[in-house]
């Protein structure tokens, strides 16, 4: 998975622990967005034709390709349902958490 991962945030105890700019390093993600979600996408790999429409239109970029299959990073998926709505084969369904 070629994307930033959740990193633990340690409260700075010394001035040197603070970032030099106004932000931490690029891709520093101390929290996940999974708590926002009421429904979660589930992919039916038999119906999926790997057209990558969902990969293009995911607002959060949580859909990724792995071994010719669509996978979803559920740490950062917000459950908006755009992927399920746009899927031409209806291979993604939204399941209640």
């Amino acid at each position, binding site marked *: 998975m070629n994307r*930033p991962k959740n990193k633990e945030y340690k409260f700075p105890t010394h001035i040197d622990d603070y970032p030099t700019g106004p932000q931490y390093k690029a891709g520093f993600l101390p929290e996940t967005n999974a708590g926002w979600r009421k429904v979660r996408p589930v992919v039916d790999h038999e119906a999926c034709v790997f057209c990558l429409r969902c990969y293009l239109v995911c607002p959060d970029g949580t859909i990724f390709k792995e071994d010719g299959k669509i996978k979803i990073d559920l740490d950062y998926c917000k459950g908006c349902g755009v992927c399920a709505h746009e899927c031409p084969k209806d291979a993604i369904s939204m399941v209640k958490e």
Partner: protein
Amino acid sequence: MNKVLDIPRVNAKNMTDKEFFYGHKACAGCGGSIAVRLALKVLGERTYTALPAGCMSAVGFIFPQMAFNSNAIITTFPGAASMASGIAMGAKALGQKDFKTVVFAGDGGTADIGFQALSGMIDRNDDVLYICYDNEAYMNTGIQKSGLTPYGTQTTTTPAGKNLPGTLTHKKNLFEIIAAHDIAYAATASIGYPQDYLNKVNKAKHTKGASFIHVYASCPTGWGTPTETSVEIAKDAVDCGLIFLAEYEDGEFKLNRNPKEFASIPDYLKKQARFKHLSDQDIEIITEHRDKKWSRMRKHWL
């Protein structure tokens, strides 16, 4: 300028797997974040991003989180384009090559507040790509009317009531105004047509000099639409003719999509809470304005 055929095509199959806008705190189904994410994926890792105040800077830089995975900075509201000019010049002075400077500004940050800096940037022909994601109001501060809010929209500063149908002015002709600067490359796009948008960003990436893309991006929170329809609604807007897909290069306009028949405007409007109050008379005004605009575009741009 490069010929179109020389530019390597970018699509979902061959674009980079890396994400440069990830883990941000935008609302679920945010259209603007689709525009930013896809553009950064086309532009690649060696990109300097400048963002004025707006949704995308608000959701990407919540301390200590940093959702941008390449260089990004928040600029002053009116100075995004001038700051990007400075970044491009500075990187050039340092001898850096194969980089691109990009601005992501909302419709308010482009058409109203950031306009003079943008105009100056195009005038100096600095090597910057300016992308305006247009969600038709100041969404970040709570849905206030901007220069790109269309007729009849209900916002918090233009409420609809017995006497007024919300916003009374039509959308600013931003694309034509930018093209009138004789810019190297300008285009309009919509996240409802992602491949078309990718192609335009790719073309702008390979353009030397100032380029501008006006991308129509939906906002489920501000428009009152279900989160899952945010791409569909951006496609509907193009299909019913309220948004057009066009390009401007070498002093010529080009209409990318010229449908014989438009989809129904009321169907598009009635899906959104911000247009729920519109009467038949108001819809007629919107239709008339669309037809006038299209007859002008077809006469001069084809």
